[in-house]
């Protein structure tokens, strides 16, 4: 379990995260959303130990991530937005580095490379950005870690690869794994992320499961415009409106509309989902 307590972080004078408190439970795929510069990547790098907190604390199963102890690192994998070109074949890379994660499965790596239609015998420094990203995603999932932090994993992936990514995340991760995915491309991951965390400047606007969200908000796809809508948008396929679910009706969440509704009514949403 990940416990974040009064977390604060700043780059010089610029405060990025301020007094953030939340708990990430085991076995869930968290979607971390937010505008540019609100601190999504910073939060991920703090969680995996690439940065140290300025105030507050992060506790992951009793570990302080910044100590970067092997026993902690062996239980987590961080896939950054930018991936390194290495002068090795993908297969060689996986065989050389995978052995440091005690649950790494080379067979799974080759299977995932095949799912992504990537050839493991290719040299990584000759791959396109998308191919390289898919190689690292395959490696990350093959490590079978308890915690997986992914920063914009679908960036640079073509349309079929995004579908393959969703398939890989749902099929190749164990039930007790906690996955935190930061993304701008919410439609790519709409059906797999639950709970959803929306970060704002120095604040958390929303941290709720899909069930909690659909319990409190209604996503209306009908063409009838309602004045009480928190957010409405005309789409090529019709309308999408978000309003309070006072009648407790069931609806399918539209993450983009949710994001916009949350940003348009920050205080209301915060009070609505306050735990």
């Amino acid at each position, binding site marked *: 379990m990940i416990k974040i307590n009064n977390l604060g972080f700043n780059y010089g004078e610029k405060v990025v995260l301020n007094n953030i408190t939340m708990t990430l439970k085991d076995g869930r795929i968290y979607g971390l959303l937010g505008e540019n510069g609100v601190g999504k990547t910073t939060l991920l790098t703090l969680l995996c*130990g690439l940065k140290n907190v300025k105030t507050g604390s992060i506790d992951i199963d009793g570990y302080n991530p910044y100590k970067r102890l*092997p026993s902690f690192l062996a239980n987590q994998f961080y896939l950054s937005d930018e991936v390194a070109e290495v002068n090795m074949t993908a297969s060689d890379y996986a065989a*050389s580095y995978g052995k*440091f994660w005690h649950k790494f499965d080379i067979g799974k790596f080759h299977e995932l490379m095949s799912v992504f239609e990537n050839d493991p015998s290719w040299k990584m420094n000759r791959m396109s950005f998308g191919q390289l990203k898919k190689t690292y995603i395959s490696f990350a999932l093959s490590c079978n870690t308890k915690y997986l932090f992914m920063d914009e994993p679908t960036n640079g992936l073509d349309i079929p690869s995004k579908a393959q990514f969703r398939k890989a995340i749902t099929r190749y991760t164990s039930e007790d794994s906690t996955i935190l995915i930061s993304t701008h491309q919410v439609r790519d991951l709409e059906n797999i992320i639950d709970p959803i965390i929306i970060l704002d400047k120095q604040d958390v606007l929303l941290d709720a499961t899909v069930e909690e969200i659909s319990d409190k908000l209604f996503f209306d796809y009908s063409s009838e415009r309602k004045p009480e809508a928190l957010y409405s948008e005309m789409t090529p396929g019709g309308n999408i409106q978000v309003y309070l679910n006072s009648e407790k009706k069931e609806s399918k969440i539209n993450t983009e509309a949710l994001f916009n509704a949350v940003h348009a009514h920050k205080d209301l949403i915060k009070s609505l989902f306050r735990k």
Partner: protein
Amino acid sequence: MNDIFNFKRFGKYLLTDIKSCFAAYGISFLTIILSGLIIYAVSVIYSLILGNGWHGSGLVLRWIIATISFLVLTITCPSRCYGRITEKRAGSSWLMTPVSIYEKLLSMFLITCIFIPAVFLLAYSGIDFLICMADTTCGEPLVSSLRDLEFLKDGLDELGAGIAGKAVNPLHYIDDMIDGILVFLLGALVFGKGKISKTILSMIAFSIISGIVFTPIALNFAEYGPAMFTDSFLFRNLFIIDTISDITVMAVLIVLIFFRTKTIKH
């Protein structure tokens, strides 16, 4: 899981690190090793073009090339093998590999300070030996010419204190060589861009500052004349003091490298 040091894990990591270092530096390393052969070939070609017949590179030229090659190796190897650590893309992978910082550092030290220089010296002198065996116009191999350094002994023996034997022993300079590599390794880990040039500039700045500090002390010695200097405790124990100071510098550099790698953030 042992979070401090695990020999089995270290062994695995060292092999992976060597592989990764060769992936990053292999072609350059091979070129440096083959520089003697390349210069030999160029010398022969020039000699033939100029109508001087078949003539390989002489001993002096081969010593100069060997020294320059080793210097290039010392300067480039740390930044090419480990400079990536400061970059966000590759550095994160290095930091996030589940191996302890002590294992990573020892591996880094062994590869840059022992393994790569040793492979270079063996391969370079081996190739030089084979060239000299095959082509007598080159003169004697570098390795066997080391004994010619004995001529230096006479001059040094005049100074007394029996330092000559140590001064001409190449093994005596291993600690200096390691210090040099560690300086460039620290530079590779501290500077984001221009790792080599910034390290050289820092060394120049450091030399100027230490020159300002130590010149009065040296002048103080000079006042007493050379005899006073050669009879001094410092001179009589010059090599012990030099070794101690080199080891101290080495320890300081290792500590700085340790704290730098431990506190790198991305």
